[in-house]
């Protein structure tokens, strides 16, 4: 019985029953080696491609620094060039929250720990094109 035949019998729920225990174990071992091998192969390939992509992208970035602003959708990220801007925005937000919290706490004579402000948002337009159809004034300002 070749290895291929063994594996074929092993993979078939009907024929596996007729395999001897040692044969089953052997087929299982081959599967394990193969499986671990392929998994590593796939993830190592990914590792190299991602490293390579990083080099490519960052070389381009170094050559021509990108100034694209980052969307608010994904907070904890920033490329080297965007870092400062994002940082200051973050700081602004924090200050804003801090001020409002303090004012309210003062008025209420309570501690700041009990108050959490979740609702101050920068405008972020996630409305679809369709949605904006009704908001005529807003569209005027953009055109």
């Amino acid at each position, binding site marked *: 019985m070749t290895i291929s035949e063994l594996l074929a019998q092993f993979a078939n729920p009907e024929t596996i029953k007729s395999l001897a225990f040692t044969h089953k174990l052997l087929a*299982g071992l081959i599967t394990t080696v193969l499986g671990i091998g*392929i998994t590593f*192969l*796939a993830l190592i390939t990914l590792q190299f*491609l991602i490293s390579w992509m990083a080099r490519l*992208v960052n070389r381009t970035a170094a050559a021509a620094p990108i100034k694209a602003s980052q969307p608010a959708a994904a907070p904890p*990220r920033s490329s080297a060039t965007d870092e400062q801007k994002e940082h200051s925005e973050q700081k602004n937000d924090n200050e804003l929250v801090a001020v409002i919290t303090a004012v309210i706490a003062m008025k209420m004579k309570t501690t700041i720990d009990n108050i959490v402000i979740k609702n101050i948002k920068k405008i972020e337009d996630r409305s679809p094109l369709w949605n904006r159809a009704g908001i005529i004034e807003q569209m005027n300002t953009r055109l």
Partner: protein
Amino acid sequence: MLEPILAFFKSTGFFALTPGAVVMMGVACILLYLAIVKKFEPLLLVPIAFGVLLTNLPLAGMMAPPILEIKNNMIHTIVPGGLLYYLYQGDCLGIFPPLIFLGVGAMTDFGPLIANPKSLLLGAAAQVGIFLTFIGAISSGLFNAQEAASIGIIGGADGPTAIFLSAKLAPHLLGPIAIAAYSYMAMVPIIQPPIMRLLTTKKERMIRMTQLREVSKKERILFPIIVTVVVSLMVPPAGTLIGMLMLGNLFRESGVVGRLEDTAKNALINIITIFLGVTVGATASAEHFLTVQTLAILGLGVIAFAVGTAGGVLLAKLMNNFLQVPINPLIGSAGVSAVPMAARVSQVVGQKEDPGNFLLMHAMGPNVAGVIGSAVAAGVMLSLFGK
């Protein structure tokens, strides 16, 4: 008047109640206790446990298939099936787990992985638990290859992947496998730390790691596309899971489809989670669950977790022999996935030795790599043992 009353009594569930069903209702209550009081992965254990309860109520017929009549090119439903039967089609046809992954992708920040691609090695190493458990299950003599593969995948520490694979290879074991997967994922803070301490020296546990570099938006957008193409080409059956995971991540990182990202990670994933949880639980009827096989699955499952943990830690130690800047081997254990619990365990164990050591961000790399790793492993199993 006695006749119809007797007939009614015979139609009640009390009359058809078996000891097995009573035991399973007890199991359901234990799972509910773990989910609600102990807060063990409640988002899935509450629906799963309730599904176990519902499926074991005699004669309620919630998993009953419909009775059809097919003639003259028409399909007529004579008696409709049970609610859970129809919802279960989403599991057994492989529709729900990839949609869960769509939402998971929209929630996941792959930044730490992109910043440190070596994480992928650790994410691969932690999958050895899957394959060694496979051997174990084969050796037990209780399972065929399809069943053993489904049991091994518990070690992937990834619920949707486990459900996706076992629904295709061994649907009759779906209940115990899903319950084991989610229970052990919740128990990661109990299972992992002793193994991590056993395999590392105090000095290794105190290794500090340098801060991760910033990842640009361009890399974040290219990442899901590259992963989809590479993984799907190398292991085609993993394409569905990885493709959906990466589509969700592309929604997140592209920044231009906020509406879709929001729905994928909220309304859609929640609806699917409810349906998936209840129906996965509903496969655990007494006659399918109260078997020797279930005991073996529970035992093998915990071994799979332990071996995966060890695999990640040991590869990290091995890598330190070759790397100039050493990595803390505690982040290796996060490679099992169980996101983000396993990464938090790395952080906690590390901080016990050195309160100023922040490993969490570093552990997130192997942690999300483990999700990709177990999807790849599931793809390998499918290509070897699938129909």
